[in-house]
């Protein structure tokens, strides 16, 4: 209990004094995860809509695999990306290993199945509703996808926020491909892992509380900006 209390106190001081190191790693956490979120959404959302409206032979298999990939251990993703980006690997010449870019890549791979699976279900439900009307109106495939994406936007936002939560708390993959290098690729979660490993529980907890507060702040901001929970809004 002492650790939790002193962790809270330390968290408060770090934030109140705008501790430079804390700001640096917090910003980097946000940078990496938000970038990964945007890129992953750009891939996952149209993919989800496409899977909902297009009928093709292996659709059910693809959807099942997508759902299953949600359970992919991030560490495994990290290892695969490491092997690919390593100098000894096929994409080594890009020199991306141990950079925030590599971390973004790993997180994109982790987030796409999650966002796509969650989004797909909502889009599928909406497609059931809209199906007869859109077919009757002869809209093109592209228009179908855009209409479904726009009208499910609140559910899609939830999917994206689920992705954000997964990403901001992720540590396994970004530890491996980022290397947790001080002033270069260290973020909140890898710093927490480091301090825990050193036995500095109070500091680790402090960073953890900051991380949670950050995640809550981002979620609140998104909800405020999109004005959810207003009367009669869809």
């Amino acid at each position, binding site marked *: 209990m002492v650790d939790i209390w002193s962790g809270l106190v330390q968290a408060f001081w770090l934030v109140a004094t*705008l501790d*430079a190191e804390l*700001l*640096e790693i917090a*910003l*980097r956490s946000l940078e990496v995860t938000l970038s990964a979120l945007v890129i992953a959404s750009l891939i996952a959302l149209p993919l989800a809509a496409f899977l909902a409206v297009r009928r093709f032979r292996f659709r059910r298999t693809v959807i099942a695999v997508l759902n299953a990939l949600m359970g992919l251990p991030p560490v495994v993703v990290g290892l695969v990306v490491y092997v690919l980006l*390593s*100098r*000894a*690997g096929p994409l*080594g010449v890009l*020199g991306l*290993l*141990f950079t925030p870019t590599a971390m973004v890549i790993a997180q994109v791979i982790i987030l796409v199945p999650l966002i796509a699976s969650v989004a797909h279900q909502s889009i599928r439900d909406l497609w059931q509703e809209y199906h007869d009307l859109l077919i009757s109106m002869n809209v093109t495939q592209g228009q179908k996808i855009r209409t479904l994406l726009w009208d499910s936007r609140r559910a899609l936002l939830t999917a994206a926020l689920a992705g954000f939560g997964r990403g901001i708390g992720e540590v396994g993959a970004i530890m491996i491909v980022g*290397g*947790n*290098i*001080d*002033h*270069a690729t260290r973020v909140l979660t890898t710093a927490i892992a*480091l301090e*825990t*490993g*050193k*036995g*500095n*529980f*109070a500091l680790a907890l402090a960073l953890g509380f900051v991380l949670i507060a950050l995640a809550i702040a981002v979620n609140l901001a998104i909800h405020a900006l999109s004005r959810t929970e207003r009367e009669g809004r869809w």
Partner: protein
Amino acid sequence: MKHLALTLALAAIGTAATAATAAETMKMAVTTSFHNSGLADVLLPQIAADLDLEVQLLVVGTGQAIRLGEAGDVDAILVHSRSAEETFVAAGHGTHRREIMYNDFVFIGPDTDPANIAEAPSAVEALQRIAATEAPFVSRGDDSGTHKKELSLWAEAGRDPAVLHDWYKPVGAGMGAALNTAAGMGAYIMSDRASWLNFGNTDGLALLFSGDPVLFNQYAYLPVDPARHAHVKHALALKLEDWLVSATAKELIDGYEIGGEALFVFNAEEQAQ
């Protein structure tokens, strides 16, 4: 909200600015034991000042450090496992090994010392006593330099850890995490002195045995061979090596203390081995 935004913006600019100041960078893989000692926080700023060189540290276990060196993902490694190092050089991954400093390993255990290792005449004897009492013992179990040293001592004690059960617990983790586990279960553990001194969670544990020369832990610096990986920054790696064996480094390393205790002994020689 505006203030927060402003602060964040300034912080972002600030980080970008600091990142741009060092003229050159290189990557070095170091072991968790080395990093936990805190010596890096003393050396790196001086290196940056003297050589205008930013050394980016990847803090990993010995095994992973060697893998990174083999893959050419870092420019040099600093580890403490002589046989692994010699293999590394022999296989052509590293150009040579240069001894820099040593610290020592110590045996930590519950302050009640049920196996009575505090009175043991040697490290090997201490381990035999632990085995005899079957007192819980936590091992790094992660193929690190520390772990390999521990295994070699068990071998000398005539015990094979692979067949030790129940009381022998390999955790597959870094030094800090392993110490946490030992603290949590009141177990014995072999640690490097620096990690122990820096460790924050010492409840119920105490340093029980040290000083046997067999427990000395030699750190060596190995530049990755550019013949293998043309892109490694070999010139910078050599520059860093020269600094690490210099008088400045000697002063900093010998002078580094935790709680009044010196940790490392500088023992680099003029010429590379």
